């Protein structure tokens, strides 16, 4: 099976996982859900690292890659920290 088809299998099955997991999220946590998915979509940082860190990388690609790493890194750190800050506020009734 060609690599692209394997990737398509992974993609379609992941869509189903996403569908079932996200329906389980309680509506009161929808804002943290958006912030958390924001953080984890910062996973494009992996792509940015692969572009920037290539041994034979040209200067143009290296600079493009640097900005990609920077933007994705803002997402990763900003996303996880703000999610944590929000979730820390949710508390149960003391009674």
């Amino acid at each position, binding site marked *: 099976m060609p*690599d*692209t088809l*394997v*990737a398509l299998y992974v*993609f379609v099955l*992941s869509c189903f*996982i*996403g*569908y079932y*997991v*996200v329906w389980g999220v*309680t*509506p*009161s*946590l*929808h*804002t*943290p859900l*958006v*912030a*958390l*998915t*924001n953080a*984890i*979509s*910062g*996973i*494009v940082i*992996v*792509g*940015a690292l*692969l572009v*920037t*860190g*290539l*041994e034979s990388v040209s200067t*143009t*690609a*290296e600079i*493009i890659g*640097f*900005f*990609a790493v*920077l*933007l*994705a890194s*803002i997402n*990763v*750190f*900003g*996303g*996880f*920290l*703000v*999610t944590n*800050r*929000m979730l820390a*506020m*949710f508390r*149960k009734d003391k009674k």
Partner: protein
Amino acid sequence: MQISVNFQAIAYLVSAVLFVLALKGLTHPASARRGNYLGMAGMAIAIGATLFGSEVQSYGFILAGVVGGAVIGSILAMRIKMTDMPQLVAALHSFVGMAAVLVAIGTFINKREAELLNGVLMGELSAGIIIGAITFSGSVIAFGKLQGIISGKPVHFMGQHAVNAAIAIATIALGVHFALTESMTSLALMTLLAFILGFTLIIPIGGADMPVIVSMLNSYSGWAAAATGFTLQNHLLIIVGALVGFSGAILSYIMCRAMNRSIWNVVFGGFGSESGDAPSAVGEAAEKGVKAAAIEDAVYWMEDANKVIIVPGYGMAVAQAQHAMKELMEQLEARDVPVKFAIHPVAGRMPGHMNVLLAEADIPYDNVLEMDEINPEFSTADVVLVVGANDVVNPAAKDDTSSPIYGMPILEAGKAKNVFVVKRSALKGGGH
């Protein structure tokens, strides 16, 4: 230290599982923080496995980028006000979009130099750039609308749909041309048109539809990550992109359902300008014998109530009145009057916005209920206090077929014995 390709693949798998568990953690507020930590662990493993893999050999620019992003991201996350959360989210979506575009272009340059380009890869690159660019410019517009830099109202122009369709077709045609010929001109034009398309797709949506836009762009940012995964043949990116893409899509669907409208109607209808119907609702209400209530009256009724339900909306966020709500709740509970909060799915400017604001004011989440849970309780409540959320309790949605929001599920505040409505201008008086 360097790890093998197989070890890296296993690490990516662990990372993907941790991300799924992170989302799963959000099933309940009690497990949510642990979920977030699992997500952080997943990200750390993914980044570590990439850095120690055989492909990454030079670290200077990477280190600068990661550290710079960490500083900027942390400052943003710590400083942002909870009312401004939608803006932060929109900004972060735009960064994902832009990063995806840059990764695709960088990959193209690297692969061209290594002479590894082929038709499939070029097609995937085009898709990555187009989705990323639409996500970027669309999110920039959403940010501008939320921040009030550009008008939040829907903007319409002549032949909108025809123009959008023409741009979309031209963008795809240039993408195909680029994939077949490696023409740099096509690449540049395609990227430019995709940026314009993001702009023209989002600018007509606004007003009450902001929660849908935020969710939709959340979804786009996921698809952009997935497209990047296809170009790099990286399964972790594909898995995560699909998770995020579906998360945003489901939220969009929930928001649309809560307004009784289809996603197509929101995206292409350009409704959202609700300024027109509020006065008519008020006028209608006046005929039914509504009186301007003195604060003393409201206090009198609430003190003796068997139960008080508060319905907060975007007006509460604007007035920063969530802390006043908390005070009110404490005062009433001290007099043995139970207080509950009722949240409509589209209250606020992003999904779940009200819940975060109430949590910020230290209101326990078990007192905050969703529409389906609270609706049966309105008929047994003595007092309902509506704070800047007039449309989500407007009974016109139930029985007035001429109302623009007819058919929208509402919070049935009208069934309670007394309803006090606090408009933005009067909010300070109402909170005490």
